[in-house]
C-alpha cells in the first residue's frame, strides 16, 4: 500500500506524520486524505486543484502541478506532501 508522509504544518493539521492509503492514483489518494482529514481540504486539495505551492513528490520525484494528479501510484510508492515552506 502506498505510504503518504506529511511534513511541517501538515503534521499538525492531519494529526499524524504518515499513513498508508490504498489507492491506484494520486487523485484518489488526495481524495481519501481530504475525506479522512478535513483540514487538508483547505490546505492541500479541494477535490479539483492543489493549493498554491503545495509540493508533492512520489519517491522523491516532483509531481508537476501543471500535469495534473491523475498519476498512477504503485503499492510501494512513498508520497511526500509539503506545505508552502522556504529557507536558505
Amino acid at each position, binding site marked *: 500500500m502506498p505510504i503518504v508522509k506529511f511534513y511541517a504544518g501538515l503534521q499538525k493539521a492531519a494529526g499524524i506524520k504518515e499513513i498508508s492509503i490504498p489507492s491506484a492514483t494520486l487523485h484518489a489518494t488526495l481524495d481519501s486524505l481530504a475525506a479522512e482529514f478535513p483540514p487538508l481540504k483547505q490546505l492541500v486539495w479541494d477535490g479539483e486543484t492543489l493549493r498554491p505551492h503545495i509540493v508533492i513528490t512520489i519517491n522523491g520525484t516532483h509531481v508537476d502541478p501543471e500535469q495534473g494528479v491523475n498519476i498512477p501510484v504503485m503499492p510501494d510508492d512513498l508520497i511526500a506532501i509539503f506545505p508552502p515552506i*522556504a529557507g536558505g
Partner: protein
Amino acid sequence: MTGWCEKVLDIDLDTRSYKTYPLDMEMARLFIGGRGLGARMLWDLVGPGVDALSPENVLIFTAGPLTATGYQTSNRFSVSTKSPLTGTILDANSGGFWGMQLKKAGFDVLIILGKSEKPVWIEIKNGEIVFHDAADLWGQRVRAVTAKLGQNNNRRNVLCIGPAGENLSRIAAIMNDGERSLARGGPGAVMGSKNLKAIVVEGKERPEINDPERFKFMLYETRKLLAASPLTSQALPEFGTVVMMNIVNNIGALPTRNHQQTQFEGAEAISGEALTEKYLVKNSSCWACPIGCTRISRTDKVEGEGPEFETTWAFGAQCGIDNLEAIIEANVLCNDLGMDTISAGSTIACAMELSEKGYIESDLRFGRAELLAPMLEAMAYRRDLGADMANGSLRLATKYGHPELSMSVKGLEMPAYDPRGMQGQGLLFATSNRGGCHMRGNMLGPEVLGLPKLIDRFQVKGKSSFVILHQNSSAAIDSLVVCKFTNLGVAEEYFARVLSAVTGLQYATNELFRIGERVWNLERLYNLREGFTRKDDTLPARLLNEAPAEGPSKGWVVQLEPMLKEYYRGRGWDENGVPKPQKLAELLLADL
C-alpha cells in the same frame, strides 16, 4: 538625498586616528549601499595581489539607505573585504541590530584600515570615536566579550571576533549582537590580523525619509503581504529554516558524508520538525522584522540562537551525524568561538573522509557526534590537526595530497544542496563570485519549492537565465540592504518603490535589477583582476564525475559545461567569462 547619512567614517588602526567625509553620492546612486557600495569601494582600496591578512587589506562595513528606517527587515548590513579563504572579493551579510545602530550613529560606511600594534577595541558613541586597549579581552569568547562591552538590545551593539579570528583561522567569522554572524569567507581572520577585537556602536539619529506618507503606505503594504504569505507568516516563524531538511533530502539533493551520498537516513531526526518538537524554546527576530525565523533552542547543556538549516546540515548530514542535541551544542560553541558553521562542518566532514581513507591519522569518523565540540575547539585554537583544519577544507585536503576531497568552489565550502539533484544550483555555485554559496541567488525556489513555479531540476538547457535572474536580484537586495526572506512575500517592485520613497530618487524595478547586474559584474572584474579565470568556474570532480548510486538523483552528475557556455552568453561575457566592453559600458563600469 535622503535615506543615506551621506557620511563615511575611516578608522586608521596604524595611527589610531579617524576622519569622516562625505559619501560619494553618485557612487551611492549607482550602487546603493551594502554589498554594492562595499564592492565599489573595495575595488579602489584593495588592489590586485594584496595579502588578505596584511594591513593593506581593509574591512568596509556598509549599511544602506533603508537601514534603520523601520522598513521591514531594514536591520541588515554588510562587510566587504578580500577573503583570506578564497582570495576573491568577499562580502558577508548579517542581521541583528548592529547595522541599524551604525546608521543611528550617523554613518553609512565604516572603513577599517591598517593594523593596530596591540589589541584594540573601538567605541563609536554619539559622534565620538574612542580607542580602548583590548588586552583584557583578547582570548575571550564572543558571548563574554559581548556582555562585557555592554550589549544592550537596540541601544548599544557589539561586533567582535572570538578566538578563531584572533588565531587567524581562515574560516573565522565576525560576530554581532552575540550570535549573528558575518561568516562566509573568513572576515573574522581579517579583523584578527588587524588586532581589532571589537567595535561597539551607540547612536541616536534616524535617517531622513523623503516621502514619509508614501513610505508609511509601503510599510502597510509590506506588512499585509508578509502576513498573507504562508512562507513568512507560518512556515518560517514556526519551523525556522531547518524546515528545508526533509524536502531537500526527500528529492535526493542533501549532501551527505562529504557529498558521498545525496540522501541521509537520519534527516528526519535533525529536521525542523524535530527541532520544534524537542528543543525549541521560542522563535525570535532581528530588529524591525515581522517574520521571526530565528530559533532559540535549548538542550541540557546550552541555550542559544539557531541552529539554521545550513548549520544543522553541516554538522549533521555532511558529517553523518543524526544527533540533534550535539548539533545544537556545536552551533552554540561555533558561534562562541567565532567561526563559519558551514565551513567548519564541511571541513570536519572532509577530515572525516581523509581519516577514513587513511590519508591522515585521526580518530575522526563519520557519525562521531562526540568529536564535534573537541574539533571545533582545536580549530579555533589551532591545536594539533585543528591547526590545518582552521585553514578550511581545500588547504587541509591539499596538504594531505587529496584536494579533490574538499567540497568547495573557489575554496569556499558549498552549502546544503547537492547539485547532482539540482542542475541550476550547480551552475550557481560554480559562478558565484565569493565561491560555493547559496546566498548569491538560490535555485531552491524554482527547482525544489515551486516558487514561483516549478522547473525541472534536472533540466540543463535554459537553466542559466534563471540563475542570472536570481544572482542579479540577490545582489540588488544585498545592496539595499534588506533580508532576502522579505522577497518571499514582497516582489522587487515593492523594494524599488520603498527605495524611491525613502531617497527621493525614482528607482524603477528594472533599475534595481540593473544595479544587481552592475554589482555582479564589478565583483567579476575584481576576481579577474586577482587572476581568477574561467577554470575557476567549476565544481569538485565528485559532482562532475561521480553519480549517486541510489536515490532520486541516481545516475546524475552536473552537466556544467553546456550551462556555463549558455551562462556566459546570457551575461554578455566572452567565452572565457570576461565581461565584454559593451556590457561594461551598458552597466557604467567601462572606466574600471
